[in-house]
């Protein structure tokens, strides 16, 4: 069993934690794991791409272009930017939320959400749009966006382990006082794709 997952987003969205949760869950299932994350400068509102590989044995942590089975996009424009990593027929879960960079406010670059959504619809057959940030807010904090996205991914039944297992690992890695909110966020994500 091999599975390559790319997580894209903006610094501060909890991208790294999401990749750790996936990796830990796979490891508990006896799969070899590799993750690679941007740590450092990019975390300050820059582009952050995490890669999670399950069952790839002695291969490296970097997923080749056109090879990812799943693209988990925490932000709309970053999902489009990450699309070249996805293989033909791969699954895309996209948070429809936009985060406008300063360059857009200053008129130095453009961001057209409608155009990007329709591009994604054209390119990715397996597109699952999720209002993840709105659902996270509903759960108690927009910071739980990553948990909604993981819930949605688990709900799609494309992982080599059960949704309940991913949920359990996520809860183990989250501080006790934040568990309730994050649990709710995870479940809202599952429901959003009809997975629970």
């Amino acid at each position, binding site marked *: 069993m091999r599975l390559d997952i790319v997580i894209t987003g903006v*610094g501060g969205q909890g991208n790294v934690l999401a990749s750790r949760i996936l990796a830990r869950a796979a490891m508990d299932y006896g799969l070899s794991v590799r993750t690679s994350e941007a740590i450092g400068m990019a975390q300050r509102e820059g582009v952050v791409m995490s890669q999670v590989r399950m069952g790839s044995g002695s291969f490296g942590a970097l997923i080749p272009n056109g090879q990812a089975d799943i693209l988990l996009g925490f932000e709309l424009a970053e999902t489009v930017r990450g699309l070249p990593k996805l293989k033909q027929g791969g699954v895309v879960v996209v948070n429809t939320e936009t985060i406008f960079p300063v360059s857009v406010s200053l008129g130095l670059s453009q961001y057209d959400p409608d155009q990007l959504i329709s591009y994604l619809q054209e390119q990715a057959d397996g597109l699952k749009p999720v209002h993840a940030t709105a659902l996270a807010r509903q759960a108690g904090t927009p910071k739980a966006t990553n948990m909604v996205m993981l819930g949605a991914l688990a709900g799609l039944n494309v992982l080599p382990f059960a949704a309940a297992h991913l949920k359990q690992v996520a809860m183990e890695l989250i501080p006790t006082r934040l568990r309730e909110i994050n649990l709710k966020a995870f479940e809202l994500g599952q429901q959003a794709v009809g997975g629970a």
Partner: protein
Amino acid sequence: MKKLLMGNEAIAYGALEAGVQVVTGYPGTPSSEIFTTLAGMAGERGFHAEWSVNEKVALEVAAGAAYAGARAMVTMKQVGLNVAADPLMTLAYIGVKGGLVLVVADDPGPHSSQNEQDTRKFAQFAKLPVLDPSTPQEAKDMTRAAFDISESLGLPVIIRPTTRTCHVCQDVEVDEKQMERPKPGGFQKDPGWVIFPSLAIKRHRWLNQQQDEMQKIFENSPFNKIHPGSRRSGIVTTGVAYNYVLEVIEQMQLDIPVLKIGTSYPLPVHSTLQFLDGIDRVLVIEEQEPVLEDQLIKMIWQHRRPLVLRGKYNRLVPREGELDVDKVKRAVAAFFEIDLPCKEEKKLPPLPVRPPVLCAGCPHRASFYAFKQAARGTDAVFTGDIGCYTLGNMAPLNAVDTCLCMGASITLGTGLQLVEPERRVVAFLGDSTFFHTGIPGLINAVHNGARLTVVVLDNRTTAMTGHQSHPGLTRNATGQRVEPLEIARLAEACGAGLVQVVDPLAYDEAVQAAREALEFQGVSVLVMRRECIALVKGQNPSRRIDREKCLDCGVCLEELGCPALFKGEEGPVIGTACTGCDLCKQICPAEAIVEGGEVQ
């Protein structure tokens, strides 16, 4: 047992397993988590861990411990090794008693560095052995082995992980038991510890002889392995590139022999020659500089092997940036003359540019803005330094005109001022950077009669690399309470004529202080002191815009470049990233920014 560990954490576990007794370092991406992991265990496990003020100091402290027989480790990033180069080059002559391991993390790409220098070149230069891990597991195993190698050679050993080892997580087999080390024998007086020219002559000869010893040790190293294959063309590789080679071979279904070298300097001659016996053509794949390739070319010539060798010099393998499976595949395809199917590159729609920026509520934004206001109408130069505040270079602040290396804001500014004495120079650097190499530059500026303003952006931490301690703080790396050093008093002691401490978020006072500093004839130091927003986030309610009052003039958006502010349909909007720092409120000409948001 197996643990999910980042390469940096794995290195820390390797040091732990080897019974490390002293750990020092200076933070720098991608190396920082090695030390952080160890510092967290230091109290319980009973070893010493310190963030030193810079890499030279870190290496010298570790060397002292190793002189006394302890196992010591020092961590830094590739550019940090330049700072530590002075002790390193001579330490190779002097040698060590206890095991001394330098972990120097390289950053090909580069993702967060000023250059892409290859530490293996430094190892060759210093004539020290270097190990080149390909995975977190191997990084852990190499760290453990490096202490033994260091002790058997009496020399420091360098481990050179790269970003994709440091910041990669893997299921790593760890040994929970810490190796019990005997109490170090202590320092024994001996003329061998004092480097005189006469000793240097002798030791240089010894160091050169040690190259053969290193080679012998590496001949049987478990870090070098052969993947058998039936063809007479093969690949020699090292470090993370090894992983990419394996994946490419599987993808392309090539039955070729691969030699993986984990000991990239010095190259083990006999085992490598044995591998080459079965081969007519060899492709060398390694990240960054042709370190293996150069050694192989030399070996082929010395041993008269009629081999075809390809790699960086034929431009088959890139010499700049990171490698990945796709790049390695292109090189392998070219070498084996295999046509790769031409994939049509999907053209993406226009996407917004998203460079890293100063965080919403970052006090540095306020400091830069205050100086921009104070210097308005002048042609002042703003020299910058290494840290979060390098991002002050981004539009719309455009407040960093130079950035070279740690501490160079002051010294470069001093040099600029020699050529254009009438032009105002403002040198910005952070609190940790001030302690790292800022102080000698400040002393130099004072002593040589410079006229410039030094701005210490004191956010009470080393923010860019993950909030490490420094001597201005009340806690050290292991959490002990220590007496903080006052930067303003140090600046006075260095001879700065005007020293002031201001809160950058008190906008009017900050601009006033900046004006006074700029007018001062001599060296002025302004300590702009306010905690990093990441340390105090969530303490203030966010702000909102009063639509009745807002003139939609664009000042808040266009002047500050705060990521919490963006353009809405009816004018500027303050988003959930707002931390309530109030800088925009203080510059809004219509007083339209008001309290009343939520605590995020």
